[in-house]
């Protein structure tokens, strides 16, 4: 029995290590390549340790046209998407969690169906609408598209969290003098923070990674991925790695910041 358990534990450990490597090794290799000089990339065999670190590639990449602008655009769109998606999605999630209304199940299904449409199919008519309304080639256009794409997950994640906070707690708050809004802010929101953080993370990542829509809806106000993907196709290999690292890093930083709240969800404080 105990031998078997030990074996099981070892297997779980091995699986964890394997998954970590699966995620980590590519990140490492990209970082390594991005921080090597162009010449050392052509060596064979490729050194797996940073023997000759150089910021040459990276700085050239960062100084190339459109990268800084794309970075700022991406950040604007990403954070804007988070704000908009939470502004609309959290109340919607609350409604789905708390109230029984006609067509609730259908509503939830249709929410998910918006993700079933390929972005290309959405983008072309959207581009037309945005051209008509003068929003074309602005960060707002991309922000709106990304918000629409992020809303289903935002609604479903926050709804799941709100279900976890018992309605009786809200009622108790209202009995003891809180208005419905105060009850939400003082009692529900603090407990729902992990879920809201998770939803924010999803929205940001989605926006950060989305290329197609951003490419179709903009010409000059490209987000970083759109910018990088269109220009790097014709660039030397080293720049592609630099571009990869530049794309990954901010997302990692955002996750690291949000992780604090996410851990709360899986950790102790709830219940």
């Amino acid at each position, binding site marked *: 029995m105990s031998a078997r358990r030990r074996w099981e534990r070892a297997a779980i450990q091995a699986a964890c290590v394997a998954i970590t490597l699966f995620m980590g090794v590519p990140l490492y290799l990209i970082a390594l390549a991005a921080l090597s000089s162009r010449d050392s990339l052509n060596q064979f065999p490729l050194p797996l340790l940073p023997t000759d670190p150089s910021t040459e590639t990276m700085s050239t990449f960062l100084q190339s046209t459109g990268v800084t602008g794309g970075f700022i655009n991406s950040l604007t769109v990403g954070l804007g998407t988070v704000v908009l998606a939470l502004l609309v999605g959290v109340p919607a999630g609350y409604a789905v969690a708390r109230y029984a209304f006609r067509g609730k199940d259908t509503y939830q299904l249709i929410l998910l169906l918006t993700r079933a449409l390929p972005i290309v199919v959405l983008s072309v008519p959207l581009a037309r609408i945005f051209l008509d309304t003068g929003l074309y080639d602005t960060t707002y256009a991309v922000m709106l598209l990304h918000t629409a794409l992020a809303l289903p997950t935002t609604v479903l994640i926050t709804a799941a969290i709100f279900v976890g906070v018992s309605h009786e707690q809200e009622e*108790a708050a209202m009995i003891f003098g809180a208005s419905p809004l105060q009850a939400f802010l003082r009692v529900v929101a603090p407990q729902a923070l992990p879920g809201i953080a998770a939803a924010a993370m999803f929205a940001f990542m989605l926006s950060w990674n989305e290329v197609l829509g951003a490419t179709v809806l903009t010409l000059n106000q490209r987000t970083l991925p759109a910018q990088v993907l269109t220009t790097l196709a014709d660039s030397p290999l080293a720049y592609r790695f630099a571009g990869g690292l530049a794309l990954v890093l901010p997302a990692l930083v955002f996750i690291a910041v949000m992780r604090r709240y996410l851990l709360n969800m899986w950790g102790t404080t709830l219940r």
Partner: protein
Amino acid sequence: MSAVTVHNLVKTYASGGKRATDDVSLEVADGEFLVLVGPSGCGKTTLLRMVAGLETPDSGTVSIGGRDVTDLPARQRGLSMVFQSYAIFPHMKVRQNIGFGLMMRKVPKEEFDRRVKRAAELLQLGEFLDRYPAQLSGGQRQRVAVARAIVVDAAVLLMDEPLSNLDALLRLQFRAELKRIVSQIGTTTLYVTHDQAEAMSLGDRVAVMRDGKVAQIGAPLEVYDRPADRFVGGFLGSPPMNFLTATVRDGSLVIGDVSLPAPDLLSTWEGHEVVVGVRAENIQVSEEPAPGWVPAQVEVVEPTGAALLLTARLGEAQLKIQAPATFPAGPDQQVHLRPAPKALRFYDPSTGLALAVDQGLGGRVGRRVTP
């Protein structure tokens, strides 16, 4: 402190179609402890929630201290409440939990501390004030919920099955403590439970509810002793009241092939069937036959420690009898029974309502059976 008056409250839930409370009116006097008791789905919690302002009635009014509060939100009704699930806030320390109502009322810091401390001491929570609810046991969490409710000194205290999540021993202890605390602070209290023993032990008065209506309301012992209908007798008391079908013939009650002297009040029921109700402890039991005693067959013997609970067969009917703990009885043994004549209650077989309680066929009378 103030009285609570509920007038013709009707509430129908969209899903059920049936009325959850059906034209209920009752009054809780100033400082009184009224218990609403009944089986699940009888509307007692709905009634409480309408008093609390958490549920909106279809029609009818609720007033507290003479003020009509039917259209006021919960926070403006000046009441406090203890919830079945405790509903304490897991992200706040015990101190903030107890003081939540004071904080919402913007009570100054000094007074806040003093009142929280006093409430915590009353419920023996003094040393836990800086803990989170997750670090407390179920019983302690319930104490936090009660402390939170009493610290605000509200005019009316509502409790929704506050003991139902505690284990049996703890429930018994806390029940007595709750009674002491509530009588100490003297608040008008409306208490909901499905546990008839809790209702009997706590209430100044008990309102037994069934199908959205109040079946009977009165002092616990009165309701226990003189159930207004078969349902109340069967619901209150453990074991429930025994019911036998008897025929009134020549001034006697005939049950199967035995007959008992019938009281005068049954003279108008000559020749008809009535239902006889009698409590387990009101049946005397003996091993020896004697004139006027009825023979019965013991089926099950259940010692409870303080007494012996016999299940016996009398003709068609099954009876629960409470015998002294020392009574020597075994299964299949023949015993002899005699109900205390004053403890017999009579019910109309078709309506289940009590026939005249004391004063002949006046007052609460069931519909006469036409043979």
